């Protein structure tokens, strides 16, 4: 089980949270300008990163607030927790062996 540090409540069990998928997927400037392929890519296509991955989480059982988290998808190490709307912090953590984005 992950121990996730909610920015509001402090460290809590992973079961108190829900996962919200990849972070920083911007809503299209003009959705009507997109063709079907581009729209489908916006809706359904996400990175499948091996290594540090920026994702959204919500503390469902606690403060019910969303936040962003930088998590290593191989080691599960949580490298950063930062507010919604903020840019992903650059991490100096080592990528796991053989990892490529």
């Amino acid at each position, binding site marked *: 089980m992950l121990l996730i540090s909610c920015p*509001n*409540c*402090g460290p*809590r*069990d992973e*079961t*108190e949270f829900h996962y919200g998928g990849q972070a920083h997927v911007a809503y299209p400037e003009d959705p009507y300008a997109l063709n079907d392929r581009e729209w489908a890519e916006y809706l359904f296509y996400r990175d499948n990163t091996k290594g540090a991955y920026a994702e959204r989480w919500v503390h*469902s*059982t*606690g*403060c*019910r*607030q969303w936040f962003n988290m930088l998590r290593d998808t191989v080691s599960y190490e949580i490298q950063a927790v930062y507010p919604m709307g903020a840019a992903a912090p650059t991490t100096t953590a080592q990528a796991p062996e053989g990892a490529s984005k």
Partner: protein
Amino acid sequence: MVETAAATPSNQNGSVVRAARRSPAAHLAGTFEAASLAGVAEIKEIPFQTMAGIRVQRDGDAGARVAAVSGGLPAACGEVVQNGGLSTLWLGPAEFLVIAPENAHASLGGDLLQALTEALGDGQGQVVDLSANRTIFELSGTKAREVLEKGCSLDLHPRAFKAGTAVSTEIGHIPAILWKSGEDTFQVLPRASFADFLGRWLVDGMREFASPEVP
């Protein structure tokens, strides 16, 4: 619905409303009594408390007006503000739960919800009557913490979890509010639909302490 009941002349003292009410764990009253051992681990339901869910930015004008009615709004996770019979729990940065005695409810002639709604006015936020949303289990005694520790992964040791603190967390795998109201007293607030499960779960956790110790 409650307003209609209160307006009926024959119900002016609330006796009709009181007689019609059935609490979410009423059927467990006997079980709770049988499972309790005075001073060691005791459980009882405190039903029908008036509860108001508030969503407002506490540092704004509307927040200040609401705080004037509730007697303050807590600033951070864990904080509880107690003032004049009202307890206000922090649930989120802009979300609070006011708990008041039963007679603060409009169905019994109280005006808490109305006062909070008027204080919010046209400010951003909401005041919702959540009195029927949760019930309260009071778990007390020297072993109360050990009972809770069986199903709550927070650090409940007094050095970390102090009296006067309330958190929204998981107990027995279900969401509940845990409020440490005294050194050996905890108020556990499950949603009504979880009351039966959590009530039985706590009784199960108390069982070893209500039996004579094996030497």
